[in-house]
């Protein structure tokens, strides 16, 4: 999985491409931890390019959210592919994350 970063105003967007699984989820958590250290705690995870997610990937999103919540920040999720969205719903994580159609809408929601 690749992680590309950009900013929309004061929001950091992490654009993921590939598979968010047991191996790559460590990279996501690492990036979020690094951003939180720099006090960048308004985050959007753009999942348009994520064509596979498993419970480890979901777990990394939840524990990233926990880290960011603790410092009163938030993570919004954007642009879920159909199958990935259905796994969010199966595991009920759509109740925990703000989910948006695209990264712009997610960034504006802060």
């Amino acid at each position, binding site marked *: 999985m690749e992680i590309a970063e950009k900013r929309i105003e004061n929001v950091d967007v992490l654009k993921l491409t590939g598979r968010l699984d*047991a191996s790559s989820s460590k990279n996501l958590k690492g990036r979020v931890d690094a951003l939180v250290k720099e006090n960048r705690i308004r985050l959007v995870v753009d999942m348009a390019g994520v064509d596979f997610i*498993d419970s480890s990937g979901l777990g990394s999103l939840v524990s990233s*959210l*926990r880290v960011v919540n603790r410092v009163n920040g938030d993570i919004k999720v954007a642009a879920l592919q159909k199958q990935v969205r259905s796994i969010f719903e199966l595991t009920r994580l759509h109740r925990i994350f703000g989910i948006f159609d695209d990264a712009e809408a997610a960034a504006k929601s802060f």
Partner: protein
Amino acid sequence: MGLRKVKIIIESDLDDIPLVGIAVNRFCSYAAFSETDAFNIELCVIEAVTNSIKHAYGEKTGEEVVVIFTFSDSEAVFEICDKGKPMDPERLKKADLTTAHCETQSIETLAECGRGLGIMKEIMDGVDYRSENGINCLILKKNIL
């Protein structure tokens, strides 16, 4: 078509899991599953392989995980086997995506919630576990409609 069978073997390295995933996905399409079913079955097999590497082998590399795929016109069966530490079968029985600590709104509890076995039980038509002669196999079944 008769009974078709293929085995995929990787070493216990998380980075090799996608190779199993993409092969399983194509096998599912070949067995006439829909794209959605193929995605969901791929997910379950990957959860099982990840569990073997993480829990049975404790992420020790150099051990083998074997995925045996057999299918007929009516059913697809995946056996995911390792030679590591066996799982307590109660884990499988109790796994449930709707149990208290996975259903809570508290992000602290949610982060701790294991979802792999629960996902398998939701998606597949059968999930069994057998440990015999040092070989542990999780058996996933899905009907072909």
